[in-house]
């Protein structure tokens, strides 16, 4: 389970240098270049493309324990939590609802 130290710091180093570059290079170039609206629009698709791609396999392939839901209780809860989150527009409520529902489903 433990994450090896060298592996961990390698990743943190790569992630931080890369992230700082992403955040800074347009700010440092600000007096020299302009970004067109089309590129800006394409960038707005990033969260919609990457976050669901992270969530879906994590939840879909999870082997659960509730037989009535074929072990897919996390998928079931996620679908309901998505509905709740859509209306509540609040992270605390989404996480609270999801964890509580999962707790009751798996403990009952």
């Amino acid at each position: 389970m433990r994450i090896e130290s060298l592996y961990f710091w390698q990743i943190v180093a790569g992630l931080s240098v890369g992230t700082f570059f992403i955040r800074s290079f347009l700010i440092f170039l600000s007096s020299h270049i302009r970004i067109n609206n089309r590129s800006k629009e394409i960038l707005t698709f990033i969260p919609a493309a990457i976050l669901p791609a992270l969530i879906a396999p994590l939840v879909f392939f999870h082997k659960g324990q509730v037989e009535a839901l074929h072990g897919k209780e996390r998928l079931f809860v996620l679908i309901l939590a998505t509905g709740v989150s859509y209306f509540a527009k609040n992270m605390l409520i989404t996480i609270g609802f999801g964890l509580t529902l999962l707790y009751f489903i798996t403990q009952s």
Partner: protein
Amino acid sequence: MFFRGFKAMIPITTGIIPFGLVMGSVAQHAALSTGQALGMNFIVFAGASQLAAIDLMLQHASSAVVIATGLIINLRFMLYSAAFSPFTQKASFLTKIICSYSLTDQTYAVLKANEDHFKTKNEALRFYLGSAVCMMLIWHSSVVLGFIFGNFMPPSLSLDYAIPLSFVALVLPTLKNRNYFYVAAAASILSVLLKPLPYNLGLLCAALIAMAIGTFLTRGRYAD
């Protein structure tokens, strides 16, 4: 202006605190040392990519895949810095560094929402720095709290499940119209179908194809 920025950030912290608590307790459950958890949090300072990285590290994904995935998540900051860059044109080198480092979803959102109130670029900068200081204070303290108290959470609470839940809450507000919804749906389906690819590459491929779909769906809108 600095304090107005600081104050404008306070309502947003209702979203930062639970995310920080999750970040801290996930780091604790992944058996990171205090140095690792705090170090990562201070150096990277980008929650969603940190959560994804910890998750992939626990699956022993290759370093290149973990870094690439995290960086793709953080590519959205490029959009923010593009929008932010007019304010920093005349700023000093140090200010530019501080502004870059502290650029987050929340500081960007607060600046964007108050854009009309600034008389000068300097005012905007001071407002931004105030909101960034507030953001960092709240974020780092909630991560520390999560890291300390994550220990007392029983395993039956399945705290790791808070990661997908927090991502749902992060992504939903970004689905501004049908095109974004199609991109998100394509990304979910493709990531499940491409899961068998080695080195967790399915995730990256799914995201890139979904981006391409979004680009295709909105083609020709800026024909000028």
